């Protein structure tokens, strides 16, 4: 694609790096922004910069957060005795959208995958035991994708937490096998979390 201006070309190149956006759509976005008042582009870039600078990860659950402690961990109405373990904070969005779960979360930040160089110590696993004790957790839900890596991680965590004598459940298989949690529709995910099954 040839551009009449180097400035446009730079902007298009940056925008087209975003997921799902090709050169053509990037150009459309840029031309749209140019047509708007200057203020609106400024707002956008300020919003992005602030997001980048100020976004935090919750000290307790590693969810994405505005403050040191995320709104879920800070909430008084959540049930602290049920802890749902997920791969990434994107899974929290998905599960929260089902409005079926009132417990708290713990984000692993990945799944065990030696092939991709991800070992247990690369995940937020150490703090889980502490949190379980602190919150008097009675049930753990392993809400990881039903993939090989998800199975390995679930197995590992179950064995690690064995002495604590907790009820450990996993999502009922409504989630398509081999599918990613993030892409599962809300109804299926909502149903899976309600009819979760014992992890053995």
């Amino acid at each position, binding site marked *: 694609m040839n551009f009449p201006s180097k400035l446009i070309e730079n902007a298009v190149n940056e925008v087209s790096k975003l997921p799902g956006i090709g050169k053509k759509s990037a150009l459309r976005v840029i031309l749209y922004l140019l047509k708007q008042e200057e203020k609106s582009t400024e707002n956008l870039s300020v919003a992005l910069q602030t997001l980048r600078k100020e976004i935090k990860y919750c000290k307790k659950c590693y969810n994405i957060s505005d403050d040191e402690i995320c709104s879920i961990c800070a909430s008084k109405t959540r049930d602290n005795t049920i802890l749902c373990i997920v791969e990434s904070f994107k899974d929290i969005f998905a599960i929260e959208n089902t409005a079926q779960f009132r417990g708290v979360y713990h984000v692993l930040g990945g799944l065990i995958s030696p092939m991709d160089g991800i070992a247990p110590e690369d995940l937020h696993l150490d703090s889980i035991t502490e949190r379980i004790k602190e919150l008097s957790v009675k049930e753990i839900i392993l809400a990881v994708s039903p993939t*090989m890596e998800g199975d390995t991680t679930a*197995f590992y965590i179950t064995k690690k937490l064995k002495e604590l004598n907790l009820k450990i459940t996993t999502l009922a298989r409504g989630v398509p096998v081999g599918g990613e949690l993030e892409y599962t529709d809300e109804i299926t995910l909502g149903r899976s979390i309600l009819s979760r099954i014992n992890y053995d």
Partner: protein
Amino acid sequence: MLLEKIHLINFKNYELLEMTFGNGLNCILGNNGSGKTNLLDAIYCLAFTKSYFGLTDTQNIRHSESFLVVNGSFKKEYHLDNDDLDTNLVEFQTDFQTENIAFGVREGKKTIKSSVNNYQKPSQHIGLYPVVMLTPYDTDLVREGSEERRKFLDGIISQISNEYLQNLLKYNHLLKERNITLKRFAEKNTFDAILLESFDERLLEKGKLIFEERKRFLSIFLPIFQEFYQILSENNEIVSLDYQTQYIQNNQEDFTVFFKKNLQKDRLLMRTSTGIHKDDLEFLLEKRSLRKFGSQGQQKTYVIALKLAAFATIKQEKNICPLLLLDDIFDKLDAKRMQKLLQIVSCAPFGQVFLTDANPERTKALLKEIKQETKQENEISTFILEKII
């Protein structure tokens, strides 16, 4: 099952090729380098979504092109049970369906599409359009290491049972993860028993299923193989196959114990030393090693019998007649065996067969002879490939 038509775009030496095949024996003749082997490999790709010769997907693309497409039009037979229908006359009825398969490679990625199935992953395609291929390289089965023989075994069983293939893929994945983990432990001088266990349990579970399926398969395969060898060799040499597996050597029930006992060894080796990935087949001729004591002709006959038996076993177990792809098989066979082989594959139970020869006169002469000698059952078609320069 029949492959009625094939359509190639940028597959190896073919820029564009459209061919319609006959129902029986298809003889593909032409000079060296005219593209005979490549044509068979294209058919193989339709079944296995990869080249027979271990090439990467991209290496199948015609030089200096960016993509390839192989389209195949299959005719499949379906037997409809009419149990619930009120028909006393017809117990079952045969129905034919045309199914189009497209195999493509573009930008390093391959795709397999079917007009009748929606695949979630390419491996689900394997076995739906079974093929058995025989090439001059196959004597490697006798001479090379155990990996070749496991590949041969897995290639057949995977076409019979997709569940077997899925288990095997999972097993290999877990094995790789376990080995990487063992290596990392050694490098970092750490150890985490629970992490290894996270692989072991599923590895043992899948391994046992794979072992059982291999054993079951071999018990069906062996007598079929022995019969083909007898027919081909026309003498009373006894051939056999010995399934060598740690499962049997260590008593199936104790295998888990055996596996766990080898942990220290595995840690030192930094890889998994026990499991079905160590299985082998020993080829025996008169109870002796075929590799050490068999003549070249005997080895070749043995391999041909293995492949014909693979065909017959798949046909029997799946109730689909696989395509038989025979590349340059007359090499190193005496005239009598050539004729014998041609005779065998041109009648039932063989169906559609693709056979190449760089020596058209030889094949034509052989065909003439068998037409006179036997009551020819299957249709014979010949194609001459011209080298396009």
